[in-house]
């Protein structure tokens, strides 16, 4: 038994999703990323004397959308509070957040584990709050810069129950939320730009121990891979400490991806007393059932629903459907491709089409997108052109192998599959006479091999397939070639 096997890992995630509103949560400034410092902050964002916050209704709508998509309770009345602390990138000296009464509570999400088992992860709450600005240290000597462009950007903080039992589960949950917020079009999910961030609360306990261990909060992890590595590092660290006779101290730790370690940032004793109290500048957020109903009507097909439909309607495996539905755009692309293929003769043929399209979208297309670092919405080959290529595989005009070659040409240029096939003479040979002629040439050119084959050396069949394919520049229909070759090699 390894040391780890004695220990149960307990993880809860706090995810900060920047809501994709056009303006900030309490001011009219734009939220666009990457502008010159302090050009997207108005007097409200700067916390000037006398200014007041006004809640952006769009942020509320997005939070409600998230609540409905996770089966949560949408609070009829939620309250904004002030979280008080001093920091240069926090202009007012307090952050407006929701504390005792969040807008969304008691939801859940189902994740699929490696062994195919399903697990429900509780969502404790999701609340609205404003983001802080950024402190800039690079290129400053003896000073720090403050960029308040991000100050006031709306955030939805999504807090899970401590239901996750491994870094892998945490990542599965994190990815699921990531997919969901993009389906809902409430967050762009861009982790590099910080639109989707995650803090992990990690503790360990001996299996069977009813009490949770002391937790540490890991901050500043900005990719799925780093979340996984940070958790694994932290779990190993905590086990080491406890097994070495030490105690875990409740604290906030920073993950350093360069060194792959977590470091103590501040302990519980050093933690701020935030002196939360209801913000008197903002009225409670009252949400009527009619508003909830109106938002519900705008919900798109959710990832799990879409995946289930692709499995039942197209006969895809759970795995394939899951991969395709991991992004709404990828699933849309897949469905558009399938729809643009010629109608199949029967259900079996339709299922074969669906599988063929799935393999291409998940395989060659995704690989090419990755290689060129492109989003599926920017794919050089649109769904209808890909469908044109797949149609030629289905009607046996080209083989799957030739199709890969055609795909590469299409990727680089703007042609259709048929244009490439015609221009390069790639049309598959199904004419029996032409194939027989090619085989006859090969047999004539390889008398030795022919004699050995006929003497019982079956392995040489592959040699003849290769030679015949070569003689037809790979255009022979493989099935036809095999059949004719077998007959001719057997002799008259």
């Amino acid at each position: 038994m390894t040391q780890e096997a004695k220990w149960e890992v307990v993880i809860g995630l706090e995810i900060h999703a920047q809501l994709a509103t056009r303006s900030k949560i309490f001011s009219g400034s734009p939220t666009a990323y990457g502008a010159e410092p302090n050009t997207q902050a108005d007097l409200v964002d700067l916390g000037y004397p006398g200014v007041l916050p006004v809640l952006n209704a769009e942020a509320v709508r997005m939070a409600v959308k998230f609540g409905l998509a996770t089966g949560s309770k949408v609070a009829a009345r939620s309250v904004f509070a002030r979280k008080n602390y001093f920091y240069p990138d926090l202009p007012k000296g307090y952050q407006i957040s929701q504390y005792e009464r969040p807008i969304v509570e008691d939801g859940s999400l189902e994740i699929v584990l490696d062994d195919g088992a399903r697990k429900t992860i509780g969502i404790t709450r999701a609340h609205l709050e404003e983001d802080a600005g950024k402190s800039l240290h690079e290129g400053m000597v003896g000073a720090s810069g403050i960029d308040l462009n991000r100050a006031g950007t709306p955030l939805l903080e999504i807090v899970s129950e401590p239901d996750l039992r491994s870094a892998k589960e945490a990542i599965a949950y994190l990815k699921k939320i990531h997919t969901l917020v993009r389906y809902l079009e409430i967050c762009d999910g861009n982790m590099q730009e910080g639109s989707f961030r995650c803090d992990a609360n990690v503790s360990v306990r001996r299996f069977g121990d009813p009490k949770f261990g002391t937790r540490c909060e890991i901050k500043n992890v900005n990719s799925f891979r780093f979340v996984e590595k940070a958790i694994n590092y932290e779990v190993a660290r905590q086990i080491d400490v406890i097994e070495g006779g030490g105690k875990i101290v409740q604290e906030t730790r920073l993950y350093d991806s360069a060194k792959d370690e977590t470091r103590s940032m501040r302990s519980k004793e050093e933690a701020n007393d935030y002196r939360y109290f209801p913000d008197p500048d903002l009225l409670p957020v009252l949400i009527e059932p009619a508003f909830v109903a109106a938002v519900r009507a705008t919900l798109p097909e959710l990832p799990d629903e879409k995946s289930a439909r692709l499995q039942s309607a197209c006969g895809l495996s759970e795995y394939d459907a899951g991969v395709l539905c991991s992004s709404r755009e990828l699933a849309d692309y897949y469905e558009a491709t399938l729809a643009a293929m010629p109608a199949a003769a029967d259900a079996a043929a339709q299922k074969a089409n669906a599988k063929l399209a799935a393999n291409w979208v998940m395989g060659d297309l995704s690989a090419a997108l990755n290689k060129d670092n492109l989003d599926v919405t920017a794919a050089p080959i649109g769904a209808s052109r890909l469908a044109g290529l797949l149609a030629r595989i289905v009607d046996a005009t080209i083989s799957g192998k030739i199709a890969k070659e055609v795909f590469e040409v299409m990727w680089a240029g703007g042609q259709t599959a048929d244009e490439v096939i015609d221009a390069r003479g790639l049309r598959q040979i199904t004419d029996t006479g032409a194939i027989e002629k090619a085989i006859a040439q090969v047999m004539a050119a390889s008398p030795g091999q022919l004699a050995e084959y006929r003497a019982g050396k079956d392995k040489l069949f592959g040699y003849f397939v290769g030679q015949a394919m070569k003689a037809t520049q790979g255009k022979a229909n493989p099935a036809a070639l095999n059949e004719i070759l077998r007959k001719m090699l057997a002799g008259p």
Partner: protein
Amino acid sequence: MSLHTASIGELARGLAAGQYSAVELARHFLDRIGRFNPALNAFVTVTADEALAAAAAADASRAAGRAGVLTGVPIAHKDIFCTQGVKTSCGSRMLDNFIAPYDATVVSRMAAAGVVYLGKTNMDEFAMGSSNETSWYGPVRNPWDPSRVPGGSSGGSAAAVAGRLVPAATGTDTGGSIRQPAALVGISGIKPTYGRVSRYGMIAFASSLDQAGIMAPSAEDCAYLLGAMAGFDPRDSTSVDRPVPDYVAELATPLAGLRIGVLREFMGEGLEAGTGDRVREAIDVYRRLGATVVDVSCPKLPLSVPTYYVVAPAECSSNLSRFDGVRFGYRCENPRDLLDLYQRSRAEGFGPEVQRRIMTGTYVLSAGYYDAYYLQAQKVRSLIADDFRRAFTEVDLILCPTAPGPAFPIGAKVDDPVTMYLNDIYTIGANLAGLPAMSIPCGFDGALPVGLQLIGPHFSESRMLSAAHAYQRETDWHVRVPAAYA
């Protein structure tokens, strides 16, 4: 008739009739400010050039036929309202260098109505005080007796109006900061219903209590100007979207049948005799005018001072966090590091009363104390509001003194904050309940003015102003001017 003792209505009519221009009017009052302000210290900033330009613009719009009732009428703004391009100090060293980059809604609404402001008035630092002695710019003197305070926090506005340096001035009232100084200098002042006037651009002290209002000799003057200030503002989420009545037209509402409740809790212990007598005489006037006068009781109201001194400091401790020396306002010299920058900027930029309230507020919101103080105070606050609600099922308006006694000598209470706080005992309740309330002059205790307070249900400003107006048609306390300023 001399210009500086004319009412707002008279000035408006004089301007409309072409008896004088807005520029002449502005000059007249600017001259008086120049003459009397050095002794009163009522103004922090006099904006003579801007005022004369605004007055010329008012005259031009009148010539073009675009004048409103108030076009060309001069006033002053309390230095708590942000005024674009003009220093907005809030009476604090912290903002001594702060030039506001925008106008408060009150300021822009008044400007849109053609009102010309002549300057920014002195005040207790961040509106925290009842005597105008906490100002970074020094105490304001009471025109009736320069050795005495004018009340606070809107002490500069009060003294400026009482000395007729301006016909009217804006004020703000968090716990009595319009009404108490109005009483102590013998003028009228109204704090409207919470949410009636936008708080946007008004530097926050205690957000759930702060409300802007107007101070002027008479209720009629107040009616003219309140109409120009009030109304929904999409930039203030707590402002109320509700039509603004024509306060001037409704002044004529007859008094007969009005039910006035005299607040039992505020007519006994703690009330000085000279003030109590004047209030009882005013009650007689109301009876004579046909009002029904009865006793009412709000038993929880005496708890308003301790309640207020939890809620207001709690909110102020958070509201004033933005003054950190980073983006605007005072910054200490040569900070060693971030903590030093925060600590010294705030210790040097804020005066002792502001620091006391920040510390009190920080304490009552702290983990472990929140429930016992802040939450408890909010519960008492709603009990006080319940008391008022019950009382208003029996009466239309509540009547009581504005302050326990007349203006006290400068320096008399500065060393004893609690005694100072008790000066607001009669006014704080209306803030805690968000109710409109006003103070009107009702006579003298010796040479010093005494104020009478009226409190009404939410959005009863019209009823209150007409009741005050009825009283002022029977009395002349509101037109009395200290001899030196006549």
